[in-house]
């Protein structure tokens, strides 16, 4: 073999360069492939956006946001839909965020490794993959009928909260995991209790990641159609939920939670299924608004993450 070895060595200078060149071609090829794949995604997004913009922007006006739905396409607006979406999102966030963070903290910081935490873990990954429509079936049976919450903002908010809970938990765990162990050790060494470590350090430092997860979850929830259809959101509703503090303080406060409502995707769905093509334009405009809302939320997430990360270095 000694011969062979020296042989290989001999050819090195020139041949090696040729080999390197050949391998580098793969680099370029693969770089292009990646760019291509990326551009397919981005172009689709752009096509979607332009498509909706072209169809929808002419319909966008102040009235579009302040009018209730109507059988006349040119007078129909999305007031009840966007208010409904906003309120449902508020409930979703208020439920999913604390629950998700608490669950993630438990799993990441408290739970001992045993079959039970294993079950919770598998369960969460599994829930992340459960089709949203099945959450709708659950909500119908549980919230609407068993708890008697009706087809209310509360029901929808709770349903979507359950839907995004796995997302919030997973991203929060990720965020907690990325906090270096030495931070925990430093805090414990100061005599902090476990809860103090969690509440003084881990949650605050994990906030950028947690926020991202929450917003990704919310932007998924805001576009969900199927479960809301199943619990029976209304399609025509020409009034807004009661304003809190209107009635007697304790009683009137939460009336809005039990109010009937509609949301953006339902409005879009309804408009697209109308025979009159003028409604399809409305649907495009509403879709545009909805996508813009999600984009806005994502942009907010990026900005917040950037802002908050600046203050957290290890």
């Amino acid at each position: 073999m000694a011969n062979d070895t020296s042989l290989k060595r001999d050819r090195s200078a020139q041949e090696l360069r040729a080999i390197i060149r050949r391998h580098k071609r793969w680099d370029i090829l693969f770089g292009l492939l990646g760019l291509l794949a990326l551009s397919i995604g981005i172009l689709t997004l752009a096509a979607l956006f332009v498509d909706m913009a072209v169809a929808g922007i002419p319909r966008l006006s102040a009235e579009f946001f302040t009018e209730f739905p109507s059988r006349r396409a040119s007078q129909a607006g999305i007031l009840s839909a966007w208010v409904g979406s906003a309120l449902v999102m508020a409930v979703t966030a208020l439920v999913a965020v604390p629950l998700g963070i608490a669950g993630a903290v438990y799993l990441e910081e408290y739970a001992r490794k045993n079959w039970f935490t294993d079950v919770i873990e598998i369960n969460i990954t599994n829930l992340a993959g459960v089709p949203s429509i099945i959450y709708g079936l659950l909500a119908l049976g549980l919230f609407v009928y068993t708890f008697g919450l009706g087809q209310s903002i509360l029901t929808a908010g709770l349903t979507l909260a359950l839907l995004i809970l796995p997302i919030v938990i997973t991203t929060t765990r990720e965020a907690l995991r990325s906090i270096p162990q030495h931070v925990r050790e430093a805090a414990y060494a100061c005599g902090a209790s476990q809860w103090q470590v969690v509440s003084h350090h881990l949650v605050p430092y994990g906030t950028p990641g947690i926020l991202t997860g929450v917003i990704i979850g919310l932007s998924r929830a805001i576009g969900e159609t199927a479960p809301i259809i199943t619990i029976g959101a209304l399609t025509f509703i020409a009034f807004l939920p009661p304003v809190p503090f209107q009635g007697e303080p304790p009683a009137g406060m939460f009336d809005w939670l039990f109010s009937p409502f509609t949301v953006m995707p339902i409005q879009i769905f309804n408009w697209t299924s109308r025979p009159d093509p003028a409604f399809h334009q409305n649907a495009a405009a509403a879709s545009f608004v909805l996508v813009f809302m999600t984009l806005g939320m994502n942009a907010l997430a990026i900005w917040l993450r950037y802002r908050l990360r600046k203050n957290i270095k290890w």
Partner: protein
Amino acid sequence: MPSRAGVAGSTGAAKLAEYAQAKARRRRREKMIEAVLLLAACVSVFTTVGIVYILVKESLVFFAQVPLWTFLTDRQWTPLFSDAHFGIMVLMSGTLTSSAVALSIAIPLGTAIAIYLSEFAGHKTRETLKPLLEMLSGVPTIIYGYFALLFVTPLIQIIYPELPGFNVLSAGIVMGIMIIPYVSSLSEDAMRAVPMSLREGSYAMGATRYQTAVKVVVPAAMSGIASAYILGISRAVGETMILAVAAGMQPNLTFNPLEPAATITSYIVQVALGDLPHGSIGYQTIFAAGLSLMLLTLCFNLGGHWLRRRFREAY
């Protein structure tokens, strides 16, 4: 604060007295907090129990009338026709075909993007493109449905005119594009998590970027990438509105993506929106179908869990 100063300066024994008092309170509080947190973690379990309970309860009524064997082997799905057939295989075929199309788009593209972003692109490119791409998963799926029907199908028909207006192919492609960020973001995170020292090791041997990415980084991140794939599969299998709008809702026992088909999810949403009297056997089919879907995703997820165990990151 003389008393405090006194404590601060006093001996350990005196301090201990103060600590002991606080200790009991602290212990109780810590225990309570842990219990609350545990409860929160269990919400997910309750959710699953709730889902399973509801699905099984209604499905039991269904299976009292339709034998399980028929359900699994019948080759037709016409539960609402007078001549009712309950062959879940038909819907399964639609679900699997559409998922296969979607995944054959999402997995290669998503992986390529992940590798590109993690190993080839600069920091700036990554930080701008990744969130942009993630927006793909934020677009409401119903919008994708119409996009598939009104944009993608006509586009494919230019190349292949025989393609029917409703088909699994374009729905699957759009679904695949929607799923790309699920695959790419999580895979990229997994690749980012591979320590720099491994990459340095590879580069130090004279490897190119491509070689480092494919031979070292990807294998090292395999468990994370596998989870990304599993999530992608779950999303594909559970996607509803795109298929309801663009795939034609035609219960065909076929694995040909060029034909229209119905999937489990599109069937459920169809019935949920429809005219069926509740409590009828037709209505219960959606729970039986939902249960099948749940079991299908469970299989994938358990498979994924096992895979992750197998390929635990070992760096």
